[in-house]
């Protein structure tokens, strides 16, 4: 399959699920999809297109939250980033763990640092943050405030 075939295929198969395709770079494509279609599209890309899951990047965009799921199709050197937008009032999305094991840790990471809930993830426990970190404080959110009065900050000596 060539790059054009893959993109044409995705357009045809998921025309109701895709919101927008941003195709500006020769080796990278950003595809915005609807929140509920994530499992369907990701599973097609991983299983049928034989892509490798790189990672997912969660971004706090002030008004909404964004997750980018990056997949690399190694044979044709194309990086597909699936963009999903989440409302701040309802930070919940289906887990990709049932499709492939590689999504396990990154979902745990996004759960603790951005506070996104992954439906279907069996074990969303702490991964990186210390045990005495309070619940409901998410360090990578824009509205994060220092909660610990004993923290020593020295920037730039």
């Amino acid at each position, binding site marked *: 399959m060539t790059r054009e075939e893959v993109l044409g295929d995705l357009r045809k198969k998921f025309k109701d699920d895709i919101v927008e395709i941003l195709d500006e770079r020769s080796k990278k494509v950003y595809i915005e999809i609807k929140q509920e279609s994530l499992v369907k599209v990701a599973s097609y890309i991983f299983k049928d297109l034989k892509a490798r899951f790189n990672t997912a990047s969660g971004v706090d965009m002030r008004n909404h939250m964004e997750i980018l799921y990056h997949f690399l199709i190694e044979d044709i050197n194309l990086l597909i*980033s699936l963009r999903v937008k989440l409302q701040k009032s309802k930070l919940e999305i289906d887990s990709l763990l049932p499709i492939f094991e*590689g999504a396990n840790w990154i979902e745990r990471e996004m759960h603790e640092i951005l506070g996104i809930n992954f439906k279907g993830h069996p074990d969303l426990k702490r991964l990186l943050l210390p045990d005495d970190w309070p619940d409901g404080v998410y360090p990578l959110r824009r509205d994060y405030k220092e909660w610990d009065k004993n923290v020593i900050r020295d920037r730039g000596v």
Partner: protein
Amino acid sequence: MEKTIIPIGPYHPLQEEPEFFMLTVEGEKVVDIEVRIGYNHRGIEKLSEMKSFDQSTFLIERICGICSTSHPFAYTRAVEDIIPVEVPERAKYIRTIIAEGERIHSHLLWLGLAGHFLGYNTVYMWVWKLREEILDVMEILTGNRNSYAMFKPGGIRRDIKSEDIPVVIKKMDSIVSTLEMLKKAVIDDPVIHARTKGIGILSKEDAINYCALGPTARASGVARDVRKDSPYGAYDKIEWDMIVTHNGDVFDKLVVRILEVFESIKIIKNCFLNLPGGEIDANIKDIPPGEGIGFIEAPRGECFHYVKSDGTNRPVRHKVRAPTFMNLPTCKATIIGEYISDATIILAAIDPCYCCTERMTVCNTKRKKIYTGKDLIKLSREKTEILRNKMGVK
């Protein structure tokens, strides 16, 4: 049979970095494993949002001491992807040389440690002696043994002097001959065979399912290497081979790494032979709003950076994903069913790097006193003195 829990870590004499493994064993067989990381979490993604694009290059160079080129390499590629800008040819070649030098010293470091974990300290001493020579080469080329500070968005900071090149090539040749000897000694050694063959097997299906990367995946027969799959730098302009083996056990991971060192030396020599002249920097002025992705093959697998810019001089989001983040979960597939005595080498076989994995400073120092280097030396001398007095040594 009764189940017993054996904790390894977070601070353990066999580990260089803090991590915690909770092994559940039945007799001598491991039946379950639980990994807890986060002891090295420094909040680098958050810090990077407070620094300018240029400063960030130095910050993320300090994510890890061993992969101190991989992270800036991926990051600069991500920033160049935002603009987009093409890096000058000479800079591409020099970047490749530095990245491969790092791969050699990183693989040798692992090989030495693997020998150490197996209780085979001769390998450890020999390999680390050889690694010193690579660090010397890097010092000649960049001025530093580690944390080279050669990368900047758009190119590199310093050029390589042409009078250094013959010296480096000569050193590389001498390394090859010692390495040949080591390769034979390690690959044919019956002790290493007995300890590593058929141990900790990662099947091809599992490697794909866990999205394993780098030598961990290549030892399981998954031909996956960013340098071949989506070439960057000078990797598509020179000849080299990807090393793939098929058994997936610890021995195969060892073989992949040793053979890759030879390939890296080949790449460095080829780069020097074809080194083009010209500029080394594309002189980037402003970074427009947008997002960019950079990924490269670090010694342990693919290193992935996502940078989002809003047109100011700071990134609004900088996501870092180090290879160990994907490789470490594979221990669930490799360690279960193995003997407890093999656990350390299986866990070490993916060449874990926790600094990278946990990148994120939330300096939560409850203690009021901060120790400086001088204080520590003083404390250490005092302790030695007390011990001497106790033992009656003058």
